[in-house]
Protein backbone atom coordinates (compact mmCIF):
# COMPACT_ATOMS: atom_id res chain seq x y z
CA UNK A 1 0.00 0.00 0.00
CA UNK A 2 1.28 3.43 -0.92
CA UNK A 3 0.12 6.49 0.98
CA UNK A 4 -0.18 9.94 -0.62
CA UNK A 5 1.06 13.19 0.90
CA UNK A 6 -2.58 14.07 1.58
CA UNK A 7 -3.13 10.84 3.55
CA UNK A 8 0.12 11.02 5.52
CA UNK A 9 -0.60 14.68 6.30
CA UNK A 10 -3.97 13.79 7.82
CA UNK A 11 -2.42 10.91 9.79
CA UNK A 12 0.28 13.30 11.08
CA UNK A 13 -2.32 15.80 12.34
CA UNK A 14 -4.26 13.04 14.14
CA UNK A 15 -1.00 11.67 15.57
CA UNK A 16 0.05 15.12 16.84
CA UNK A 17 -3.35 15.76 18.44
CA UNK A 18 -3.30 12.35 20.16
CA UNK A 19 0.20 13.08 21.48
CA UNK A 20 -0.89 16.49 22.75
CA UNK A 21 -4.06 15.26 24.47
CA UNK A 22 -3.26 11.73 25.62
CA UNK A 23 0.47 11.00 25.45
CA UNK A 24 2.12 14.24 26.61
CA UNK A 25 -1.19 15.43 28.14
CA UNK A 26 -0.30 19.06 27.49
CA UNK A 27 -3.70 19.99 25.98
CA UNK A 28 -2.11 22.75 23.92
CA UNK A 29 -5.00 22.72 21.44
CA UNK A 30 -7.28 23.90 24.25
CA UNK A 31 -5.11 26.94 25.06
CA UNK A 32 -5.25 30.47 23.58
CA UNK A 33 -1.44 30.70 23.83
CA UNK A 34 -1.12 27.85 21.33
CA UNK A 35 -3.61 29.19 18.78
CA UNK A 36 -2.15 32.70 18.96
CA UNK A 37 1.32 31.27 18.40
CA UNK A 38 0.06 29.08 15.58
CA UNK A 39 -1.59 32.05 13.87
CA UNK A 40 1.75 33.88 13.85
CA UNK A 41 3.61 30.78 12.65
CA UNK A 42 0.93 30.16 9.98
CA UNK A 43 1.56 33.58 8.48
CA UNK A 44 5.30 32.97 8.26
CA UNK A 45 4.77 29.42 7.03
CA UNK A 46 2.95 30.81 3.99
CA UNK A 47 5.96 33.04 3.26
CA UNK A 48 8.62 30.34 3.70
CA UNK A 49 6.60 27.67 1.88
CA UNK A 50 5.93 30.22 -0.82
CA UNK A 51 9.67 30.69 -1.25
CA UNK A 52 10.40 26.95 -1.29
CA UNK A 53 7.78 26.22 -3.91
CA UNK A 54 7.57 29.54 -5.78
CA UNK A 55 11.33 29.48 -6.51
CA UNK A 56 11.09 25.78 -7.40
CA UNK A 57 13.44 24.62 -4.64
CA UNK A 58 10.96 21.84 -3.79
CA UNK A 59 8.58 20.26 -6.31
CA UNK A 60 5.61 17.95 -5.87
CA UNK A 61 4.06 15.04 -7.72
CA UNK A 62 0.43 15.53 -8.68
CA UNK A 63 -0.21 11.87 -7.83
CA UNK A 64 0.59 12.55 -4.17
CA UNK A 65 -1.27 15.84 -3.65
CA UNK A 66 -4.70 17.33 -4.37
CA UNK A 67 -3.09 19.81 -6.79
CA UNK A 68 -1.12 19.18 -9.96
CA UNK A 69 2.53 18.28 -10.43
CA UNK A 70 4.85 21.30 -10.09
CA UNK A 71 5.75 22.68 -13.55
CA UNK A 72 9.23 22.04 -15.00
CA UNK A 73 9.93 25.77 -15.09
CA UNK A 74 8.16 28.70 -13.49
CA UNK A 75 6.09 28.69 -10.32
CA UNK A 76 2.92 26.64 -9.77
CA UNK A 77 -0.41 28.49 -9.23
CA UNK A 78 -0.23 31.03 -6.38
CA UNK A 79 -3.67 30.08 -5.11
CA UNK A 80 -6.21 27.49 -6.18
CA UNK A 81 -5.81 24.03 -7.71
CA UNK A 82 -4.98 22.64 -4.28
CA UNK A 83 -2.33 25.25 -3.60
CA UNK A 84 -1.93 28.23 -1.30
CA UNK A 85 1.00 30.63 -1.71
CA UNK A 86 2.43 28.23 -4.36
CA UNK A 87 2.62 25.37 -1.82
CA UNK A 88 0.37 22.29 -1.71
CA UNK A 89 -2.34 22.78 0.91
CA UNK A 90 -1.09 19.49 2.38
CA UNK A 91 1.82 21.55 3.72
CA UNK A 92 -0.65 23.06 6.19
CA UNK A 93 -1.35 19.59 7.64
CA UNK A 94 2.35 18.82 7.77
CA UNK A 95 3.15 22.20 9.32
CA UNK A 96 0.43 21.97 11.94
CA UNK A 97 1.65 18.52 13.03
CA UNK A 98 5.28 19.71 13.22
CA UNK A 99 4.42 22.84 15.19
CA UNK A 100 1.99 21.14 17.58
CA UNK A 101 4.39 18.27 18.33
CA UNK A 102 7.28 20.67 18.93
CA UNK A 103 5.32 22.96 21.26
CA UNK A 104 3.60 20.08 23.05
CA UNK A 105 6.85 18.24 23.78
CA UNK A 106 8.51 21.49 24.90
CA UNK A 107 5.70 22.08 27.42
CA UNK A 108 5.72 18.38 28.40
CA UNK A 109 9.35 18.69 29.55
CA UNK A 110 8.54 21.91 31.40
CA UNK A 111 5.72 20.17 33.24
CA UNK A 112 8.13 17.38 34.16
CA UNK A 113 10.47 19.98 35.66
CA UNK A 114 13.12 19.82 32.94
CA UNK A 115 14.48 23.37 32.80
CA UNK A 116 11.11 24.82 33.67
CA UNK A 117 13.01 28.00 34.45
CA UNK A 118 14.17 30.57 33.52
CA UNK A 119 10.66 31.40 32.30
CA UNK A 120 10.21 33.77 29.37
CA UNK A 121 9.54 37.47 29.69
CA UNK A 122 9.04 40.21 30.26
CA UNK A 123 9.90 42.02 27.02
CA UNK A 124 12.91 44.34 27.27
CA UNK A 125 10.66 47.39 27.08
CA UNK A 126 8.75 46.34 30.20
CA UNK A 127 10.36 47.31 33.48
CA UNK A 128 9.92 44.26 35.67
CA UNK A 129 9.26 44.48 39.39
CA UNK A 130 10.44 40.97 40.25
CA UNK A 131 13.44 40.18 38.10
CA UNK A 132 14.83 36.66 38.60
Amino acid at each position, binding site marked *: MSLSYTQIGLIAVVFAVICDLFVFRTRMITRPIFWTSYAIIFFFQLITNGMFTGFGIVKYDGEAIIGNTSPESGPPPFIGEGRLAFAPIEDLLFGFALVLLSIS*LWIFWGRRGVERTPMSGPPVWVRSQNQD
Partner: protein
Amino acid sequence: MGQFSYVAVLVFVLVGSMWLEFALRTRVFKRPRRLLLTVLPVTLPFLVWDAYAISQGHWWFDTDRILGVYLPGEIPLDELLFFIVIPIASILTLEAVRSVRGWPAGDEIA
Protein backbone atom coordinates in the same frame (compact mmCIF):
# COMPACT_ATOMS: atom_id res chain seq x y z
CA MET B 1 25.35 30.71 -5.12
CA GLY B 2 22.22 28.85 -6.17
CA GLN B 3 23.01 25.90 -3.96
CA PHE B 4 22.36 28.09 -0.91
CA SER B 5 18.76 28.88 -1.92
CA TYR B 6 17.21 26.36 0.48
CA VAL B 7 19.50 27.37 3.34
CA ALA B 8 18.76 31.06 2.65
CA VAL B 9 15.08 30.40 3.40
CA LEU B 10 16.12 28.80 6.70
CA VAL B 11 18.28 31.83 7.50
CA PHE B 12 15.19 33.97 6.89
CA VAL B 13 13.28 31.86 9.45
CA LEU B 14 16.14 32.07 11.97
CA VAL B 15 16.56 35.83 11.61
CA GLY B 16 12.80 36.25 11.82
CA SER B 17 12.56 34.37 15.11
CA MET B 18 15.92 34.65 16.93
CA TRP B 19 15.47 38.34 17.77
CA LEU B 20 12.61 37.27 20.07
CA GLU B 21 15.18 35.64 22.34
CA PHE B 22 16.64 39.08 23.06
CA ALA B 23 13.75 41.50 22.59
CA LEU B 24 11.13 39.41 24.40
CA ARG B 25 13.53 37.52 26.67
CA THR B 26 12.11 34.17 25.60
CA ARG B 27 15.07 32.38 27.26
CA VAL B 28 14.74 29.33 25.02
CA PHE B 29 18.49 29.04 24.55
CA LYS B 30 19.02 29.31 28.28
CA ARG B 31 17.22 25.95 28.45
CA PRO B 32 19.38 23.93 26.04
CA ARG B 33 18.67 20.49 27.52
CA ARG B 34 14.93 20.96 27.26
CA LEU B 35 15.35 22.29 23.72
CA LEU B 36 17.44 19.28 22.69
CA LEU B 37 14.98 16.84 24.28
CA THR B 38 12.22 18.52 22.28
CA VAL B 39 13.83 18.98 18.88
CA LEU B 40 15.51 15.57 18.52
CA PRO B 41 12.46 13.33 19.09
CA VAL B 42 10.31 15.54 16.84
CA THR B 43 12.89 15.58 14.05
CA LEU B 44 13.19 11.79 13.82
CA PRO B 45 9.66 10.80 12.67
CA PHE B 46 9.61 13.67 10.18
CA LEU B 47 12.90 12.49 8.67
CA VAL B 48 11.38 9.01 8.27
CA TRP B 49 8.37 10.59 6.56
CA ASP B 50 10.72 12.65 4.39
CA ALA B 51 12.68 9.55 3.33
CA TYR B 52 9.45 7.73 2.49
CA ALA B 53 8.06 10.67 0.50
CA ILE B 54 11.33 11.05 -1.41
CA SER B 55 11.44 7.32 -2.17
CA GLN B 56 7.83 7.45 -3.43
CA GLY B 57 8.51 10.60 -5.45
CA HIS B 58 5.96 12.68 -3.52
CA TRP B 59 8.42 15.54 -3.61
CA TRP B 60 11.90 16.22 -4.90
CA PHE B 61 14.45 19.01 -4.82
CA ASP B 62 16.11 21.17 -7.44
CA THR B 63 19.67 19.89 -7.13
CA ASP B 64 20.96 23.32 -8.18
CA ARG B 65 19.32 24.92 -5.14
CA ILE B 66 20.37 22.61 -2.28
CA LEU B 67 23.74 22.00 -0.64
CA GLY B 68 24.26 18.64 -2.33
CA VAL B 69 25.02 16.78 0.90
CA TYR B 70 22.74 13.83 1.63
CA LEU B 71 21.76 11.77 4.65
CA PRO B 72 20.71 8.11 4.45
CA GLY B 73 17.40 7.79 2.64
CA GLU B 74 18.46 10.38 0.02
CA ILE B 75 17.46 13.15 2.46
CA PRO B 76 19.21 16.45 1.67
CA LEU B 77 21.11 17.94 4.62
CA ASP B 78 18.98 21.04 4.03
CA GLU B 79 15.92 19.03 5.14
CA LEU B 80 17.55 17.99 8.41
CA LEU B 81 18.31 21.66 9.10
CA PHE B 82 14.66 22.48 8.31
CA PHE B 83 13.44 19.99 10.93
CA ILE B 84 15.74 21.62 13.50
CA VAL B 85 15.07 25.26 12.61
CA ILE B 86 11.27 25.09 12.41
CA PRO B 87 10.72 23.51 15.85
CA ILE B 88 13.08 26.10 17.40
CA ALA B 89 11.22 28.94 15.65
CA SER B 90 7.90 27.48 16.86
CA ILE B 91 9.08 27.34 20.47
CA LEU B 92 10.49 30.87 20.26
CA THR B 93 7.10 32.05 19.01
CA LEU B 94 5.24 30.32 21.85
CA GLU B 95 7.57 31.80 24.46
CA ALA B 96 7.31 35.21 22.79
CA VAL B 97 3.52 35.12 23.10
CA ARG B 98 3.88 34.08 26.74
CA SER B 99 6.34 36.91 27.35
CA VAL B 100 3.95 39.52 25.99
CA ARG B 101 0.57 38.17 27.09
CA GLY B 102 1.44 36.14 30.16
CA TRP B 103 -1.01 33.43 29.20
CA PRO B 104 -0.63 30.00 30.82
CA ALA B 105 0.91 27.21 28.75
CA GLY B 106 0.55 24.46 31.33
CA ASP B 107 4.13 24.26 32.62
CA GLU B 108 3.88 26.98 35.25
CA ILE B 109 4.70 26.20 38.86
CA ALA B 110 1.35 25.47 40.49
